[in-house]
């Protein structure tokens, strides 16, 4: 659990606290909601309401590699829908899901800020641009291969 005391138990820091929490565990568990609401002296239902409002917060454990497919305008125009479908097909998961091994999770997001490289994805923050299906599958398989080596 992040150092909530440092945040001054000030309600306006709730989102910050949740962000810290997510950084640590990768998602916001029920237990985390209970702990944080106790710490901030808030009703759990209110904290849950905040968590579920913002797309950044995940309530299920994400995969080790978080794939974000950009569906910002520039990427969309160039074909991000196809990229998303390629990824879905290849991984066998839908948006917002994590695969069975817990390796990959998939999300569609708005502009990643690299429109000139569209279509773009990011995996754990690292951006890959100018994607084709081949390139995408290779990137994903490289991650998987690296994982299998370990």
């Amino acid at each position: 659990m992040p150092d909530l005391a440092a945040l001054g138990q000030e309600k306006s820091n709730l989102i910050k606290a949740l962000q810290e929490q997510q950084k640590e565990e990768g998602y916001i568990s029920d237990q985390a909601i209970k702990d944080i609401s106790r710490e901030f002296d808030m009703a759990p239902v209110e904290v849950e309401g905040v968590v579920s409002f913002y797309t950044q917060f995940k309530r299920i454990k994400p995969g080790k590699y978080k794939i974000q497919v950009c569906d910002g305008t520039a990427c969309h125009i160039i074909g991000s829908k196809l990229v998303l479908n390629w990824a879905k097909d290849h991984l066998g998961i839908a948006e917002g899901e994590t695969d069975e091994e817990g390796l990959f999770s998939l999300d569609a997001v708005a502009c990643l800020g690299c429109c000139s490289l569209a279509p773009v994805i990011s995996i754990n923050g690292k951006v890959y641009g100018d994607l084709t299906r081949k390139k995408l599958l290779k990137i994903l398989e490289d991650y998987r291969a690296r994982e299998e080596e370990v």
Partner: protein
Amino acid sequence: MSQIKVTIDGQTLNAEEGQTILQVARENQIHIPSLCFDNRVSQNTSCFVCIVQDAESGQWMPSCSSQVQDGMKINSSTPEVEDMRKTALDLILSEHSGDCEAPCTLACPAHAKVEEYVRAGREGNHFEALKIIKERIPFPMSIGRVCPRFCEQDCRRNVKDQPVAINDFKRLAADLYYDEYLEDMEDLTGEKAAIIGAGPAGLGAAYFLRRAGIASDVYEKRAEPGGMLRYGIPEYRLPKDILEKELAHFEKMGGITINCNQELGQDIELEELKNNYDAVIMAVGCWQPSSMRTEGEELAWGGIDYLEKLASQNFEMEDPGETIVVGGGNTAMDCVRSSLRLTEEQVHCYYRRTAKQMPAEEYEYQEALEEGANFEFLTQPISLRKEGDKLVLKCIRMELGEPDASGRRRPIPVDDSEFEVKADTVIAAIGQKTIAPEGVPTNDWGDVEVKEDNCRVEDNLFAAGDCVSGPATIVEAVAGARRVANGVQAYLKDDTYKPPYLINVSRGHWQSVSEDELVYLQEPDESERVEQRHIDLDKRKQTFEEVSLTFTKDEVELEGKRCFECSCTAREDCQLKEHSEELGADPEAFSGEKIDHGYNVEHPEIVMDRGKCIKCGICIKICNEVVNEYLLGFKNRGYNTKIDTAFGQPLPVDCEECGECLEACPVGALDWKVKKNEEILKKLAEEK
């Protein structure tokens, strides 16, 4: 606070700075609908049903949240404003899922409050049940026996297994308390109607008029009253002493005189009646058997004629010998089963389509089979002739072709498949038609033409029942009777009757609902439907004794526990429904996805049905700002927003003591579980 002036709908009003438009309007009795406003809590500004328009700038604003300004001019009732409000409601309804009214009640042509009398029956209050039933059904003993049970066909319980045996609740309640019960009636006003035809529609109309204080003289051409109840439905389904009891009740009500042997055109004249009475209702039924359109058909009995003859002879008739009944409807079944009781010979039923396509009730077919009838499907008669003392019916086999206009596959003849059969009696029970009296306008089907909203033909002449609808059922006749009675009352008050605009949100027909989408107030009993008990089969084959037996009180109570209690707890005080009806909003105006957020009935007293939540936010704020708790909140956002408790847990048991949020919820999303019949009864009483 300084005083300012604002104008709403042309009315200039004094107001105080800081007040909202809605407050000012309400203080001045100007009606603005609202859903998400509650003056105990801070603004929600969610529903936009309170929207108004600035007459000068054209700016739209929610009146509950916009403060008045000096000199402001507001439009709150222009067509544009009402259209915006209606659209807001249309949209809210399009994401709403619930059942305002139970499917059974909606399915009942007479809109008898089914769920309520089922509840009364379950609780053993059969007198109360009868009272609820009789608000809509003048002949509960008869209909409790012969209704084809439209309500059960739509009963939600079908999703799980078999429908609740609804009709048997009526039958028991009526059998138990018919003699004691007398309905509330208005004092007679002195107005009087003439009713032509003492069948279910005519007598039904007399009943509803009498309850409203209008007397009537009923004219019947046959020797005894009852119409189809007497002459169409055989004794073994509806014993005539039951009918006598129903008729006796009419006598007890007073103000209704039945004159038999009075035939229109001979003993009475339409014009005369129109002149002598405040209103005339024609309810002459459908008594003309339809033609088989085959050579020699005059040698056959018309189905309805056969039944009429049988009834008029007190169900004693010469042995018809080997009998062929042509047709597959309820009249055909009545003919088959009556014949079976009159002869030791074979009784056949010939129908040109398949068993599945027979319009007759399934149970009638089954019971006819049990009683020994022989069915020949895909068989069409083509001619009839006499050979000696036998009749010879020539038929052809059929097969199913392409679907016709009704969507059923059309039977087409199979080449070279003609065959002949001999019989002593042939009955053509393929339908009936209306014989409209001379000079009365009719439609393409030959039925009497009436205005839809008030059942009026012309002048002070009204019509109802089979002669308007074509051959139908008793309960439909009774439903028509109520409509015509309303039409007459309105006519006598000199306004056209406009049926109130009512909306019904529905979770959908049970066929489109899966078991995990069901919502109930408490877990229903798992038991199977109570089976109807019958008299011995031998007796059924020999006599006209009534075949089925009335449920016992225990059976009814058991059966009642199977009911899901489908209707909405908020039905009587739902603001969404109220405003939607006021503004003509329509649950079907927009179609689209409805999200199933589920419901929670774990709390002993409280139901949270998220599908009904309109996201107004009142409950959250009441709980937080008024009660100083924080037990409710919104989750998710956008179209996925839902009301919930922490981790979806049921509300704490203590909430029972407070219940502020439930009381404040404008709809049935958060509500007490109880549904009280008293409220229904009160409302029914108010309607009159």
